[in-house]
């Protein structure tokens, strides 16, 4: 069964005619071509598909598109403004926190949400926040350093 689903993504409204048995991830990538959000495991384990729902990181591979209606969705495409990267994106580049890049959209959005809620996040808090995002390249150290570089807590680098 198809129906119109109204989604608010990166401050823009989209009306998508879609079958209801689809996830937000499928609609983002296939219908709206917002391919920055990645599909890894497809079952909620890896965190590649992380998007922000009302400011909080969630798995878009486990979220029915109809359940995302009426909520504020932010994807990696929504971070840069007027052609300038967000400071957290800059920090990931500067700290070499990106290697293959597959986990980066999810990692960056998770870090972004954490710092919005807790600008003084400690290393422990950062590690807990990203504990649901798997990276197979970096060993996490550079990712933690990148997020930590924007935290105003003591010991800031």
């Amino acid at each position: 069964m198809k129906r119109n689903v109204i989604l608010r993504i990166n401050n823009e409204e989209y009306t998508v005619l879609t079958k209801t048995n689809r996830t937000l991830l499928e609609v983002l990538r296939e219908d709206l071509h917002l391919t920055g959000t990645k599909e890894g495991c497809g079952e909620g384990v890896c965190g590649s598909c992380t998007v922000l729902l009302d400011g909080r990181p969630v798995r878009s591979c486990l979220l029915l598109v109809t359940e995302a209606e009426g909520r504020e969705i932010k994807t990696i495409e929504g971070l840069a403004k007027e052609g300038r990267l967000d400071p957290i994106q800059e920090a990931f580049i500067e700290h070499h926190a990106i290697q293959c890049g597959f986990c980066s959209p999810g990692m960056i959005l998770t870090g972004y949400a954490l710092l919005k809620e807790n600008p003084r996040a400690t290393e422990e808090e950062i590690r807990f926040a990203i504990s649901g995002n798997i990276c197979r390249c970096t060993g996490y150290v550079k990712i933690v350093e990148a997020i930590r570089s924007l935290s105003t807590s003591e010991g800031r680098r």
Partner: protein
Amino acid sequence: MRLPPFEIFEPKTKGGGFNLLNRYKGDIKVISGGTELVVLMKDGLLRPRYLMSLKNIKGLKGIRRKGRSLIIGCATPLEEIIKSREVKSLFPALVDACILVAAPPIQNRATIGGNILQDTRCIYYNQTEIFRNGLEPCLKGGGNLCRAIKGGKRCFSVYQSDIAPVLIAYDAKVKIESKGESKSMPIMELFTDKGEKPFTLEGDELLTEIEIPIPGNGGKGIVTYKKFRVRDGIEYPFASAAAMVSINGGGQENVVLVIGACGASPKRLSFSFSEGDTIEAKMGEILDGVDKKTVAIDNLALPGEYRKEMFKIMAKRAIKDAYDLIRKEKTL
């Protein structure tokens, strides 16, 4: 992985929801956080014709006081429980258990009702359709055989909620509602202890509330929770234990232990001993009890024999932590 087809309803009232559950009983599943249901549907383990979303129904979310109890709505996300000061001060072990469920992005969506009613698991059952294709369906899949144990006559799938053992230790009750009916029962009565169908809940019933009694003055017990997993942030418990320790005025000590991931339901054991006995002296008896009441076979990612030992270790650690907290409170 794609979802099978279904039709979704989004009722605006509880009554509307109960009507739908009643009309499509057996063909309908409830979705709230969706963090388990969507996975089971993607794997083709569930193919409901209809889904009913709880997102528009008011009154199923939130934490409130009612007399001498704390009420948590079934659709309350774990994240809200973790951040609640009231829960943290009244039932700290519940917060500990919620933090140990998966990772924050899951806690942001997963609900307490969904966590309690999560299905039992087995590595031979929770697999993709490609894996299961060509194999005879097992007992849990509606067939007649067990793939975990050759010749097994029953299903050995494992119930792995982190939250249920803690709620049992806190003596929580659940409210079950359906069209025109409402009942309240101890959370333990939710379980059938059968892997094939782990819950006593019928298809037209909804678990709407969790009610946790607030301990009275003087009778306060300390609850702790310990979880064993290999990869933090990802795994369900391979073994877990909640302990409730209380010492009454006469010096009588009561220990309630709830072991998780040890069969199709959590196992509750209780011990009490009088003045003169020490917990150290009683530990052997307690651990023997744990050993007798728990089952673990090779149907999760770690061997059954290993998990069997871990039940005892988790139990010991949970009890020790509870006693340490009691001693700390006494010296304060």
